[in-house]
């Protein structure tokens, strides 16, 4: 069942990468791999298949020795799986058939590497190590050294076809990871918090796009009504990038809140962000901004009519002596 699922994931990825027969054919042509090569490779087939396990061991022994692959090698289960796939790979490499099934096998192994966090350059070093051993064996196995070298060059085309696939998969997987993370950031909820009667706070963290700005505004407007808010402190300390679009979203939120009778104070515009806004020529007039969240809350309290004092410093005319805390 699990392998079925994994198979489906491989096929999905192949589809996403546009790896159909035609694309694989283009890739084969790119490295110059043709029927001639299959014939030459056939001459060294037995030498490789018989010792496939040995060569696979060579690949993983190399990885075991480099620091960069330490995390990867620690995951016994995945390494064992990779070893099996590697043997399968070596057998397939000399099979003479390099179509969709072959590409799918490469995808499976590449996905496993990227899941296990094996980096491309480390993988390539190990693969080169493996190829050298195979090349030596090919030359020895051939009736004449020249023929062995010819066969090895053909095999090398297959190897580069593999590398192309492997690297593409690893990059695609990484891009997928980044996309997933971006989605996670975007889906961070934006809570509206009541910090005093009639005073709300709206901390915004992460990226603001149209969809999120809309949700955020709706949340805020409903919270204003539910809490009978008079002032809202909108803190954008956690918004690292502000452009014209984001600024417009913020302005719209502020305008909508104002229509409901609530005043919005924006806090936490960093030096960088404010510089960007000035350079962009975004007009924030009509927006009350205060440097930091504390200042914003103090101003909001003043507007509503709160006065906050330290317990020992009530303004009863008698100044309390300053005590070190």
């Amino acid at each position, binding site marked *: 069942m699990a392998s079925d699922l994994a198979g489906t994931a491989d096929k999905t990825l192949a589809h996403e990468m546009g790896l159909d027969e035609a694309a694989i054919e283009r890739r084969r042509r790119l490295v110059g791999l043709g029927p001639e090569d299959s014939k030459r490779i056939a001459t060294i087939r037995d030498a490789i298949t018989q010792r496939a396990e040995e060569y696979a061991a060579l690949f993983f022994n190399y990885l075991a020795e480099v620091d960069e692959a330490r995390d990867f090698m620690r995951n016994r289960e995945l390494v064992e799986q990779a070893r099996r796939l590697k043997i399968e790979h070596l057998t397939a490499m000399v099979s003479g058939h390099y179509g969709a099934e072959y590409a799918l096998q490469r995808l499976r192994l590449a996905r496993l590497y990227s899941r296990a966090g094996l980096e491309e350059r480390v993988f390539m070093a190990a693969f080169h190590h493996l190829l050298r051993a195979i090349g030596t064996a090919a030359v020895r196995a051939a009736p004449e050294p020249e023929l062995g070298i010819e066969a090895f060059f053909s095999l090398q085309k297959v190897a580069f076809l593999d590398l192309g696939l492997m690297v593409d998969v690893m990059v695609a997987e990484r891009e997928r990871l980044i996309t997933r993370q971006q989605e996670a950031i975007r889906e961070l909820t934006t809570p509206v918090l009541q910090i005093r009667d009639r005073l709300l706070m709206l901390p915004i963290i992460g990226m603001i796009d149209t969809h999120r700005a809309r949700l955020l*505004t*709706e949340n805020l*407007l*409903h919270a*204003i*009504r539910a809490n*009978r*808010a*008079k002032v809202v402190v909108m803190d954008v300390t956690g918004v690292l990038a502000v452009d014209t679009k984001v600024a417009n979203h913020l302005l*719209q*939120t502020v*305008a*909508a*809140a*104002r*229509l*409901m*009778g*609530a*005043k919005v104070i924006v806090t936490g515009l960093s030096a960088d962000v404010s510089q960007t806004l000035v350079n962009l020529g975004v007009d924030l007039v009509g927006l009350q901004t205060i440097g930091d969240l504390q200042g914003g809350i103090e101003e909001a309290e003043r*507007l509503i009519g709160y006065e906050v004092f330290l317990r020992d410093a009530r303004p009863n005319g008698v100044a309390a002596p300053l005590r070190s805390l």
Partner: protein
Amino acid sequence: MSVPILRHGNVLIASIQVAQTDDDLLKLRDRLSEMVGQNRAKGVVIDVTAFDVLDSFATRTLRDIAYGSRLRGARTVVVGIQPDVAFAMVQLGLDLGAVSTALDLDDAVAELSRPPSEVGRR
């Protein structure tokens, strides 16, 4: 149906309960303008809680009422714009200009009872 206009001290309260045609709104504008003078009102509160939508004409009429009343010595506060209405107005680029807004009648009356010098500092 014409909108009832109530007098509370020196504040006029117009509570719009049913959907208004453009004509109704214009009539309301004229009546309010007249009553501000008759009653020597200092404030006007327009309650739009029942509105599902405020289009550009309604927005402009509200603005006109506010400017007109100010010329006759009364401040205007619009109350009860619903969240969805506010959002739609912003999306459409509609703006009440310098007209004060408040969440409910309490806030509107409190806003009007503040000395004029403080207006705008809120």
